């Protein structure tokens, strides 16, 4: 089976790679582009550890074929920080100790960014439902939700 040439944009930079037709975008990101921040927890779109943003929409990269990335704009966890400056969501995850093993964290941060890009002022319940596709087995979500709400407040310019 011949490989396909894929041209896309990843974290603001033009990118190209070769992919088998059946290869998931997650595998292409990790194995071809060496962007190993996105994780595979299930491979079936149930855990959200592989969350990325494609053209502004939150997507499970394990459910998308690598060849489908052609011509689209992709943001992965590696593109969330601005150089050395952490995104407020990343900073708040650290401040609130909103992680333990860290395996779900890249997906949760990407999902939170996608939420706040669209809805800068979510209620706690809205945040919980938005993040319901991102499983965390360590934290019980308490500190994650606090980090999300705090990041939202900071990004709106409100001191929490």
């Amino acid at each position: 089976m011949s490989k396909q040439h894929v041209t896309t944009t990843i974290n603001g930079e033009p990118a190209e790679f070769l992919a088998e037709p059946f290869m998931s975008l997650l595998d292409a990101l990790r194995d071809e582009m060496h962007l190993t921040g996105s994780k595979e927890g299930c491979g079936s779109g149930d855990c959200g550890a592989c969350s990325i943003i494609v053209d502004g929409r939150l997507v499970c990269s394990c459910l998308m074929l690598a060849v489908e990335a052609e011509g689209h704009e992709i943001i992965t966890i590696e593109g969330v920080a601005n150089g050395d400056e952490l995104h407020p969501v990343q900073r708040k995850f650290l401040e609130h100790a909103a992680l333990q093993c860290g395996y779900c964290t890249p997906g949760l941060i990407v999902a939170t960014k996608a939420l706040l890009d669209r809805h800068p002022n979510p209620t706690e319940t809205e945040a919980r439902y938005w993040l319901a596709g991102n499983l965390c087995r360590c934290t019980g979500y308490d500190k994650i939700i606090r980090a999300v709400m705090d990041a939202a407040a900071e990004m709106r310019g409100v001191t929490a």
Partner: protein
Amino acid sequence: MAAVAATSSAIADAALELIEVKYEILPFVIDVEDAMLPGAPILHDDLFTAGVEPKATTASNIAKRVAFKLGDVDAGFAEADVVVEGYYTTQAVHQAYIEPHACVVTVGSDGQSLIYSSSQGHFMVRAYCAKLLGMELSDIRAMPSEIGGGFGGKTVVYLEPIAMALSKQTGRPVKMVMTREDVFRSTGPTSGGTIAVKLGAKKDGTITAATAVLKFQAGAFPGSPVQPGCMTCFAMYDLKNVTITGYDVVSNRPKVAAYRAPGAPISTFATESAMDELALKLGMDPIALREKNAAKDGTKTAYGVTFQNIGYTQTLEAAKNHPHYTAPLGPNQGRGVASGFWFNIGGESTGAVHVNEDGSVSIVTGSPDIGGSRASMAMMAAEVLGIPVEKVRPVIGDTATIGFTHLTGGSRVTFATGMAVTQAAERVRDDLKKRAAMIWEIPVEAVDWKDGEAVPAGANAGGFDPMPLAAIALKAAKTGGPIIAEVSVNAQGAGPGFATHICDVEVDPETGHTTVLRYTAIQDVGRAIHPSYVEGQIQGGAAQGIGWALNEEYIYDKQGKLDNAGFLDYRVPVASDMPMIEAVMIEVPNPRHPFGAKGVGEVPIVPPMAAVANAIRGAIGIRMPHLPMSPPKLRAAMDAKAG
């Protein structure tokens, strides 16, 4: 068994398709009680029940019987004014760490092997692989990878020995990664079980007798956590007359593995539900009933230990006084309380502290970090050395670079590895004082250590400027060479963990769906080294317990095949299922640890199932003795009650 190595997973999958396996279908048994019946299909014709008199002579699915006893329960029940009895069941549940098992290994032509894998203990990985492959421990170097959750489930090997055999044959590195389905089907969940409980009490709430009979699924091979299940289930109480009997039972299920406080959540669901029934029958407040019978310093447990420096009554006191306990409830809402106990362990650990030439400090331990323990290690060393924690970098050494360390489990790391790190830091501090004395040419007794600096003391006080750690490090070559210490301990005296949880639920009378409205988890943590990570352990344990209570279970079809081997159908709690979880830390320091730490990671999963069940009992007036308390079960129970 067959294994295929290929240059891509797609080729390996295609090769696996070409292997034809013919199975002979044998009689099977899934349920634990069925497996114990006379005439049940026997899994192993060489398995005889251990722990019975006279010695068993016929093969049985009961691998082991254990029993614990204090006093005379018959006399105790004869004294009782009130007796409650109940029969409870729980289902097998999985640890459900989000990271599937994975490894990369190489076996060189000289037999030297390297293993990179995610586990709760790379010394454990090395030991199992050496044993299974007939190798010397020194020929295997096991590297600790970052671990994406374990909760007990990564305390055994699954992939590593197979990958090593393939690497040996091919002469190439071999990578193996489980799919999520593999994880559910082929790695150990914890046992489901049945528990029969009977409690007798005087009118004033004094428990006069307690019995429990536990039957736990071991999976296809012996080894369920029924023994700790027995030991923990009444450990919160000072009981004069108690018998606890446990059966380890094999059935045609995956072999179980450890899961957070192994055995205790299963048995305690039953005993703490029974305590709630007893409180109802006595017309007593559930916390008051627990206070009346609470274990205290000096209480002797049924398994023989006498407690010291425990904080159980303090958790009850805090629960009673917490605003949550007296907050008003609405219609279809209920409140439940339950307590729990876990031993916590110590054991073998090694910690090394290296002072670097620039005055920064490196710490090496052998404990994989599954919940932030590296930060705690750094904080303890920084405290001893009197330097900012940012100056301390903790790493986990592989099996060739740090001394033997037992795996991360039993809530032991902050206690035992923390003890090794603290002692190593103390040795380094003593060495730094010695070096300063050498530079100043004064006796070492005349040097103190304060805020990260050597200061002249006694007759020499004020005689020299304080010498910071970095300045001493710079001159290390001239004062005897590198400043390092490595300490190995076999830590004893881990203080036990006690917790009391309060849970509010609302049950939807239409659907039977339970919403957890509010949750407060109170726990004696000894001394919290890193308080927000301690809170995280408490919150995470409570959430796993809530999942166990309401949703999670291994579901088998009639052919004995697992029906829900994926996160869609095996539903762990998601963010929208949970309320905030208030963690309340009670600090009753452990005198056996330099900073008073007790293990904190496991006991928070012990009370939740009974706390939720007791809350549901409050909301709908029905005791739910069978887990999970899923909507169809609640709906059926409510329909039956309505007639």
